[in-house]
């Protein structure tokens, strides 16, 4: 009985809204824009946040990354390589790795790595790459997936073999349209046999932070750590500067993987203490990066944006609600006579309240229902527009913008937006509907 009446009241409301289509649509626009703003902001924020989370997870949520940092000042400890320029000695050592291994309880995997920037050559093709000398278990720590061939093995490490695994972009650049596995390429003056190729992983925007150094996983060639140390030595020559400068660095990176997320913080503290003890604290040549902390920071940043977006949307919805209320108040006055007639014909106050409330709720819900797809469409246009603008202005930071490329409309956002629009409909309709219901039927009937 109630549902029958509800549908009838609904029909009545829709019919009366259809009497003034232009007015109804204009009234609806306020809510439409509000909901649009809610959906657009939330989906852009969600998109960025998911992208960044992905990036952080690529680095491993249970990883602690210790990196060698080249000290800012050049006149550091000079080592005995002395052929002209000053040699800088810095960075992590094998001893550091061993100390961490023995001191950090629950440290599952210690992955030392060396990074060397050089040019890879395959017949006439050349490309800039980063050689990462590492250990076989690097693959588990960084969740590396081999697409073709195989990954580095303990035997490779033990035999100091000249074998390598290529990042997707390197394989594409050097050996397009052919099977790279089994080919031999040149790294500097050494020949390396390709044993495997990785799947594409993309850029890591989060690893360097927004606007910071980005890491391209696809432009890396992985070789056994032993081979990297022996063939390339610990002395690196940087010819880019005006004069030759040398740097001595045993390990560029040590990744510590712990079993549980709760162990990350204590382990990071121990590692920091350890390094402070054995390295020059005045000029630190190392840094500890904890992806988990970034993840948490990200979550906080996300909420900041959500709150910001919500405030904008709230203002828009407030204005929309005031618009609805305004129109409804006018409509109530305009239909005073009708209210009087209905009351005389047996309509109770709550019937009148219902009648007007239904109209505002229908208006706002419809506004919301249209606003959701429009907002979702807008959300996909925003990153597109931003990338365009960045391209025409020549602004860099593509990696940061790449995070914008995907927008995610979550069911939660849709429910929130629709719920809010229904709420605005009720909130803005209550007062006009109450006013209508409180009219004296006798006066209402005589209203001109």
């Amino acid at each position: 009985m109630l549902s029958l009446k509800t549908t009838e009241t609904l029909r009545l409301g829709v019919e009366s809204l259809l009497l003034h289509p232009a007015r109804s649509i204009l009234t609806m626009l306020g809510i439409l824009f509000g909901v649009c703003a809610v959906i657009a902001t939330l989906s852009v924020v969600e998109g960025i946040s998911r992208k960044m989370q992905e990036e952080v997870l690529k680095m491993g949520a249970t990883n602690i990354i210790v990196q060698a940092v080249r000290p800012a000042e050049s006149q550091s400890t000079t080592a005995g390589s002395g052929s002209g320029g000053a040699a800088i000695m810095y960075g992590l050592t094998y001893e550091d790795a061993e100390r961490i291994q023995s001191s950090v309880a629950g440290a599952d995997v210690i992955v030392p790595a060396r990074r060397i920037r050089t040019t890879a050559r395959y017949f006439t093709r050349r490309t800039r790459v980063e050689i990462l000398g590492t250990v076989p278990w690097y693959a588990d720590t960084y969740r590396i997936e081999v697409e073709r061939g195989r990954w580095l093995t303990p035997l490779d490490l033990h035999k100091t073999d000249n074998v390598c695994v290529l990042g997707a972009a390197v394989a594409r650049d050097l050996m397009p349209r052919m099977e790279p596995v089994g080919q031999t390429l040149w790294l500097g003056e050494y020949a390396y046999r390709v044993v495997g190729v990785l799947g594409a992983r993309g850029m890591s925007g989060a690893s360097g932070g927004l606007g910071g150094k980005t890491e391209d996983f696809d432009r890396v060639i992985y070789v056994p750590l032993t081979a990297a140390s022996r063939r390339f030595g610990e002395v690196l020559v940087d010819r880019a500067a005006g004069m030759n400068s040398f740097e001595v660095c045993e390990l560029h990176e040590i990744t510590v993987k712990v079993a549980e997320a709760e162990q990350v913080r204590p382990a990071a503290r121990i590692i920091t203490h350890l390094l402070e003890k054995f390295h020059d604290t005045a000029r630190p040549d190392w840094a500890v990066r904890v992806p988990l902390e970034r993840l948490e920071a990200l979550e906080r940043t996300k909420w900041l944006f959500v709150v910001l977006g919500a405030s904008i949307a709230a203002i828009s919805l407030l204005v929309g609600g005031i618009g609805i209320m305004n129109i409804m108040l006018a409509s109530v006055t305009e239909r005073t006579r009708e209210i009087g007639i209905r009351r005389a014909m047996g309509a109770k106050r709550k019937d009148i309240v219902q009648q007007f409330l239904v109209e505002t709720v229908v208006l706002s819900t419809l506004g919301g229902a249209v606003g959701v797809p429009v907002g979702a469409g807008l959300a996909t246009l925003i990153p597109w527009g931003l990338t365009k603008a960045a391209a025409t202005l020549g602004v860099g930071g593509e990696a940061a913008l790449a995070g914008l490329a995907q927008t995610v409309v979550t069911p939660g956002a849709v429910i929130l937006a629709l719920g809010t629009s229904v709420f605005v409909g009720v909130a803005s309709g209550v007062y006009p509907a109450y006013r209508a219901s409180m009219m004296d039927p006798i006066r209402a009937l005589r209203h001109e």
Partner: protein
Amino acid sequence: MSLAQLVDLRKVYRMGADVEVVALRSINLTIDEGQYLAIMGPSGSGKSTILNLVGCLDRPSGGRYILGGQDVSGLSDGELSEVRGRRIGFVFQSFNLIPQLTALDNIEVPLFYQRMHRRERRRRAQELAERVGLGPRARHKPAELSGGEQQRVAIARALANDPLIILADEPTGNLDSRTGQEILAIFDDLSSRGRTLIIVTHDESVGRRTHSIVRVADGVVVGHEKN
């Protein structure tokens, strides 16, 4: 048998803090089933107030009003709405149809608030439109109907819930005399079928068609004539 009884009914309007306007001093009136009654009196005499009270649109300041065996003088707003919807049929001078609804939809309005099913409502509205001689005009909106046709719609609407009393407030006031006669003929017909009708008017010719005339002046009944 008395259908409605007004016992020492009073109505005082409060205008501002301490200004009171006495609309009805003391009204005693008994309306029998099947009665065809005219209430007459000069403007300001209180005849409209009587109509509002009898129609349960307003509550008396004092006295008692018994309608169909029920004392309705102390009912709440919601209960009065219920009584209006079930037991009273209104016909107004200015027709008071809802402009955006068709004639049939207008006839359905009282049925809607009695929670009658849509199909049943439509059937009843069509039947009533036939009875008041609306015919094919029933699907038009009030603006497309003549005054006489509009008043026929209003009468059909008043009959919709099969009320105890039909109250008509100057039903011919906005009509030319010929159309007025047609409308009054419908009232005569309804009365002859046993309906209880009360017509408020200051037109003597209208009053003379009824069974009896109650004359009101200064908020009291000053005369009761049988025709």
